[in-house]
């Protein structure tokens, strides 16, 4: 099987068949007209020979569809450039050893879930002693001094604490993303930090289910971590980046 990386198409069971599946709801009652509306919508999305494989009545004038079709479009995979964190991932022991060898001081991290967001699950997974999926959190790292401020922390308070503790890195978690509240909140933190002249004194790192490294860079952060991140990923980035800056 020879894949042409300049023209990559979706794959169902045959190369270049372009097969995709999607589901959506229409605010019209289920019926033959609704089914046809779903098919036409799929056509307008550019799908070829769309098949409505399921229509369900959701009540109150809504209907739900599962649709399969062939997407004729392709992308040039070879032309894609994604900014990546270039640091290698180290283990818990390697990170601590690295700090002792290269930084020769404890790494201070201040973390919070900011704004009105009350979901601490992300920040807890990274910072709390216990960690996540068998990886200890930053509080457990002997060479780290980690402060988890919890949830619903105003941006100004997070910065004040970061200054008070002499933080090397600030970690912000944003879980609620309704109406892009997380973007406003993350932007405000960087603006505040710049206004107070402390943006370059510490690393600013954000994380959450809808955060990517690319988005974080765009918002003015040093790094962003999305789903599947473990504490040692964040720790590795922090210590490597601090070491890099120290050498400059």
């Amino acid at each position, binding site marked *: 099987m020879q894949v042409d990386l300049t023209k990559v198409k979706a794959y169902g069971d045959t190369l270049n068949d372009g097969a995709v599946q999607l589901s959506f*709801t229409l605010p019209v009652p289920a019926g033959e007209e609704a089914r046809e509306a779903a098919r036409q919508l799929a056509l307008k999305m550019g799908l070829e020979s769309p098949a409505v494989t399921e229509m369900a009545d959701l009540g109150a004038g809504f209907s739900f569809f599962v649709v399969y079709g062939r997407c004729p479009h392709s992308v040039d995979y070879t032309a894609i450039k994604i900014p990546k964190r270039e640091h290698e991932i180290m283990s818990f022991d390697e990170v601590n050893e690295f700090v002792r060898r290269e930084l020769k001081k404890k790494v201070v991290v201040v973390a919070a879930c900011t704004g009105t967001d009350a979901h601490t699950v992300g920040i807890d997974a990274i910072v709390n002693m216990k960690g996540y999926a068998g990886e200890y959190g930053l509080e457990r790292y002997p060479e780290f001094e980690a402060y988890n401020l919890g949830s619903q922390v105003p941006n100004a308070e997070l910065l004040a604490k970061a200054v008070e503790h002499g933080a090397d890195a600030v970690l912000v978690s944003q879980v609620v993303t309704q109406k892009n509240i997380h973007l406003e909140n993350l932007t405000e933190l960087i603006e505040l930090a710049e206004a107070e002249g402390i943006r370059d004194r510490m690393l600013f790192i954000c994380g959450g289910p809808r955060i990517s490294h690319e988005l974080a860079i765009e918002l003015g952060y040093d790094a962003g971590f999305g789903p599947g991140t473990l504490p040692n990923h964040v720790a590795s980035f922090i210590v490597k980046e601090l070491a890099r800056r120290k050498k400059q």
Partner: protein
Amino acid sequence: MENKLNLDQAIIDGARAAASRIADALHSWISLYTTTTIERAVARLVGIDGVDAAGVPLPNVLVDRLHEKGLLGHGLLSWLARAMISTGQGPQEIAEAVAGGKLDVSAVPALPEEKWRDLGDGLAAEAAAKITARRLEREQMMATAAPERKPLLYVIVATGNIYEDAVQAKAAALQGADIIAVIRHTGQSLLDYVPYGPTTEGYGGTYATQENFRIVRRALDEAIKETGRYIRLVNYCSGLCMPEIAAMGALERLDMMLNDAMYGILFRDINMRRTLIDQHFSRMINAFAGIIINTGEDNYLTTADAYEKGYTVIASQFINEQLALRSGLREEQMGLGHAFEINPAMEDGLLMEIAQAQLCRELFPRSPLKYMPPTKHVTGDIFSTYLINGMFNLVSILTGQEIQLLGMLTEAIHTPFLSDRYLAIKNARYVFNNARHLGEEIIIKEQGRIQARAVELLNRAYALLKEIEKIGLEEALERGFFADIKRSRDGGKGKEGVVLKEKDYYNPFPEIFLQRSAAKDDDGRAC
């Protein structure tokens, strides 16, 4: 309740007795205090509503003035009764006069108790009658509705816009949901007031306001007419305004309230004393209104590890039960919470979930247990999440859970789409119907893995309760016994709202609320 787990009744009794003594220790001081939100709830119960020119709710305006003048420790209602006598006006007019600067709270003359007492008692009796009418209305509607099949299907709507919520709530009811919660705006728990009027903007949910309660209640009452089923409405009696939300819910015929004794302390960093005082009054209102409370132990398992800390859920359920009993709640009104949160990658994780769920069932046989879906370990792989939710539903029907908060396949992605709820209901209906009597057919192997896990959970919960009894709940919370979260006794938000009651403190509501629950049924239990 069949004893499938071979539990030692002496240990169950010991755990319950320890929890009872823990609750007694708290109640040695809870009744010495009132709080700003309790007094605001009293204001709301006697009909004070609306906002001043600056948008501040009138209950806040009035209570703040009384608090500033050091008068709150006597109770709002004695002041109000005297103000009514001296001005000849009603509660709402008086609150408006205070807000408009026309009435100075300290200018209301002192009067001997016999002069105003009947008026105060009358206001309270009138408020209680309104709540009773809403309770009877519910009982009436339920009596004529189709019989319920448990587990009840519970879904949430969370658009931020109450009018959109109402449409989605009704759609969910028509799809088969029995219980609908309008998720609250994420920041509301820390507001020391209840917003006023209908709201159309909120993040992660919609503000709880009395008008919003009314709007969704109306939509669900339409759904009741259309489906012939009673559809229950839920909101969040938590945060800094527990008593006020309870009062609003009682007046607008909500059916369930998230109403935990410790949730605010642990997860919102609300002052310990404030929360414990507030939960007591709010639960009395809920008890009187016939509302089922939901406790929040499920949250422990999203912060701490569900397998390692499963026993803390059991210990907390015992404490929540004892505190709830002291507020007049019947066991049938206690939707004790737990969750399906063990890492799905764990070998035999399903067996451990069955052990936990069956244990809750056997320890609290009359409680309409509230079972929460997997959230912590589900991912953007909606197909996998849908399967895990099916396993969650299977455990529920197997172990006789009653309030099933349905897992959403997009849990890890966004607040649910309309179709996510439809798929969740379809999943639950399939599993519940397809395995309806599985629990009656299955015997759990003696000394097997499930029994061993249940016994371990109970033993550890009992040990924890004994330790908490020794040091007191306050100290236990300081040491991080629950959810791995430590809270200091004097820290947290809202402590300035705690007020020592004066000798002549007057608030007739607790007596009215507890009186009803003091009535006994044939088994000698509160009814």
